[in-house]
């Protein structure tokens, strides 16, 4: 990507020219009615005035300042930046879906409801669970729903001492934040030197105060916790429930079902595993799949199928002890359409191919880079590999610098400094959607950067050099907030 020096960076408001219009609208075709009193009306509406060609050029040039899947390899760990099929966009914008109003009666929305019903079933099948609610609007909201269900389960049993939720220290920040929002006390559990959750510490926590545990499987170290069956069993014997963060489900499609291993609730990120576009930070969708134990508590609504007059009829319902609604309507339906289309395109064989190739690609990177970067957990990884640049750090170059230098070579940075328990972590997730040639090119660049660290460290610490802006002053942004034009 080359810099775009000719594109001036004035904001929309700064580009406004009085008198220009960016859209044309019909004239009033009914008799003008009496307007409300002036005390109810606003005086001015400070929005910009631009013509349509100016608008299109502005936003098109802005878009060119971004790295994206469509333009760059984007090995951002735990984010599953895979290819987003164009077909899915086309289907989501079909008028039958996009122009379907959420307040229409169930009878008028049978196509949408059938799609949701089928998707609920597919996701339950993929996770080995008994039921699904598609209502959560993002992964973190799925987590919140999962924790609220666990809370409700204990409450209904009159078991109100269970206030503690155990979460490994490798967990994504949303896990403890979601547990706290659900009113739980969070206890962080260290990871063993194998990268699994410390079982001795878990044994101490497995008491009548334990509401549950939140586990990402495979975890954010890219490792499959092979103590998982014993861990679920330990939590269950103590009376707690097991929450699974499905952020890394791309590794497990068709390879293992969390429900079989003892998980009680799992959320999925349709914007990761199921290829719906990230859109620069949303929309996501975070369906929750549950075991029999938690079926009555699913967030509202869910779609059920009934047989009427020999035909199948779908309707929206609220489960009997539902934790309630978490959004205005029925979930991020447009995202559900894309995920459904993706699953139908792939079938079981394609889903298995995804996990297989995602894991091959990650291990290929691991093997190729293990002599250049430190490998903190020397095990086969799943869909992502965690490297540490601590050896490069010793030469005065931080993980952040390496991440920025990658941008100069046209690759997006890996996830950095996460998980928090790995020093100078670089978390690399190639996904199944990258070719061997791309991976080889990335390997060459990672090795080249390592050579630069030794030979010309300023080149790396001063990176990026070729992006539309060089390194930005984040401290200034926080110290002197300028949050609007």
């Amino acid at each position, binding site marked *: 990507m080359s810099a775009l020096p000719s594109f001036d960076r004035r*904001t929309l408001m700064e580009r406004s020219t009085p008198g220009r*219009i*960016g*859209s044309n609208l019909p004239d009033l*075709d009914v008799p003008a*009615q009496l307007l409300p009193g002036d005390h109810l009306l*606003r005086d001015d*509406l400070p*929005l*910009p005035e631009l013509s349509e060609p100016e608008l299109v050029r502005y936003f098109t040039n*802005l878009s*060119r*300042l*971004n*790295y*994206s899947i469509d333009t760059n390899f*984007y090995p951002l760990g735990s*984010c599953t930046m*895979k290819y987003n099929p164009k077909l899915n966009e086309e*289907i989501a914008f079909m*008028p039958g879906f996009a*122009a*379907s*109003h*959420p307040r*229409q009666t169930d009878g008028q*929305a*049978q*196509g949408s409801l059938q799609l949701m019903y089928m998707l609920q079933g597919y996701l339950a099948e993929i996770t080995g669970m008994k039921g699904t609610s598609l209502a959560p609007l993002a*992964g*973190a*909201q799925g987590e919140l729903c999962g924790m609220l269900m666990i809370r409700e389960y204990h409450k209904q049993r009159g078991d109100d001492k269970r206030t503690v939720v155990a979460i490994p220290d490798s967990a994504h920040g949303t896990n403890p*934040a979601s547990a706290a929002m659900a*009113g739980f006390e969070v206890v962080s559990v260290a990871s063993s030197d194998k990268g699994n959750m410390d079982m001795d510490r878990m044994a101490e926590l497995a008491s009548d105060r334990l509401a549950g545990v939140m586990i990402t499987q495979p975890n954010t170290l890219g490792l499959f916790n092979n103590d998982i069956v014993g861990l679920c069993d330990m939590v269950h014997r103590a009376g707690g429930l097991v929450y699974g963060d499905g952020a890394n489900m791309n590794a497990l499609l*068709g390879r293992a079902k969390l429900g079989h291993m003892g998980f009680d609730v799992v959320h999925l990120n349709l914007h990761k595993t199921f290829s719906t576009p990230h*859109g*620069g*930070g949303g929309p*996501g969708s975070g369906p929750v799949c549950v075991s029999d134990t938690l079926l009555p508590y699913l967030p509202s609504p869910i779609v059920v199928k009934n047989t009427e007059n020999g035909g199948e009829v779908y309707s929206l319902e609220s489960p009997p002890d539902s934790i*309630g609604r978490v959004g205005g*309507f029925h979930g991020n*339906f447009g995202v559900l*359409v894309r995920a459904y289309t993706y699953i*139908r*395109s792939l079938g079981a064989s394609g889903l298995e*191919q*995804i996990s*297989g*190739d995602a894991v091959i690609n990650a291990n290929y990177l691991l*093997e190729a880079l293990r002599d250049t970067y430190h490998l903190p957990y020397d095990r086969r990884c799943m869909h992502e590999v965690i490297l540490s640049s601590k050896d490069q750090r010793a030469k005065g170059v931080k993980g952040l610098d390496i991440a*920025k230098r990658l941008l100069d070579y046209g690759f997006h940075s890996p996830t950095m400094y996460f998980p928090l328990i790995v020093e100078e972590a670089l978390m690399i997730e190639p996904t*199944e959607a990258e070719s061997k040639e791309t991976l080889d090119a990335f390997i060459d660049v990672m090795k080249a950067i390592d050579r630069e660290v030794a030979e010309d460290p300023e080149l790396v610490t001063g990176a990026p050099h070729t992006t539309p*802006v*060089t*390194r*930005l002053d*984040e401290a200034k*942004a*926080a110290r002197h907030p300028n*949050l609007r034009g």
Partner: protein
Amino acid sequence: MTGRSHYIPNTDDDRAAMLKAIGVSDLDELFADIPDEYRNPKLEIPSPLSELELRREMGEMAGENHHLGRYISFLGAGAYNHFSPSVVRALISRGEFLTAYTPYQPEASQGTLQATYDFQTMVCNLLGMEVADAGMYDGASALAEAALMSCRVTGRGRVAVLDSTSPTYREVISTYVGAQGIQIDVLDPSQVLNESARPEGNRRDGLPEDTACLIAQYPNFLGYIEDMAALEREAHAKGVLFVVSADPFAMGMLKPPGEYGADIVTGEGQALGLPVSFGGPYVGLFSSKMEYLRQMPGRIAGETNDSQGRTGYVLTLSTREQHIRRERATSNICTNQALMSLAATIYMAALGRHGLRHVAELCYHKAHYAASAISHLPGYSLHDSGEFFQEFTVRCPRPASEINAGLLEAGIIGGLDVGDIVENGMLLCVTEVNTRGDIDRLVEALAGLT
């Protein structure tokens, strides 16, 4: 169709070469950490379909819906059928926006970040507020987050919600705040208004002690405009934050909540150029007075400069957020519905200073034209004589569900059945997409359904 997926580049030769490089003979060895008895379970998912087959199948499924492209519709109630110029979809479909991730690497994400800054600017201007975040899941959850934020700001443990607020929004608030032991009081506006003017000893219940915020919807669920100035006075008289869920589209002409002194203003951004799409994805608007900035949930973009002094944008104030603060974060939210925020940004810019006012007035005039005509029909009357924008509630001669069944036969999707709030009530919405001919057809059809 069987065989390989066209979404995956690896060939069998590639796989063989890579497995060899890894040092394993078989793919299954890479999954050896999964206990044998749990590995490779049967996966019951239908066989793959080609793009051609899939497009046909999905077209048939979409065709099962009675959608707004085929019917005249007067449904609103939280999702609005407004016209969206072609530029909106064309621009958000650019892969550079569509397939980018959250702008954690600002040097590689200036497009998304600058558009986010534009979004925050215009949301503030539209709502009359000092600071806005980059977007929330939707209008309902944004309001629930405002309730939680009010409790953090005030250190109080109850939230008061007007009973004229959307019932689904109240349900979402309940889901969000219940687990934290926060109590919800649902109040009739008359319980709140003029309370401080009543003589001592003759006060009604009003706002309870320990109330963190008073929540009002503007316009309210049934379409009407509350006495915003009076609500603000009552709230602030008790040190209660005034929280408003506003329809941003109505703010094209109505006085924005910020001018009424609102402390936190949220809204459903769908009306700003997004398709109704059976309920999502939408975008929640979230804005506040500057003094509460550090208690706000969600992402925020800010302006700064690069090492060469050039203007650029970053995500900022992230010490509020879950990835830094974990269980002590202001919220667990980790998205800002960026693509939907972008759509709203393009929409607001395309409509602009005069366009949004014009289209809001189109809705106003058409809705009032419709309301006036319907109120003259025998058996029909307006539920409320108050001011409204584009939605109003009609009392029908029979339950609205029965009236709607008749309307559907005439090719019309009627209003929402609100019989649980108003006897035989129907909540109707008229927007710029409804022509005079559409409205006249509705009125004529209603006249035949007494």
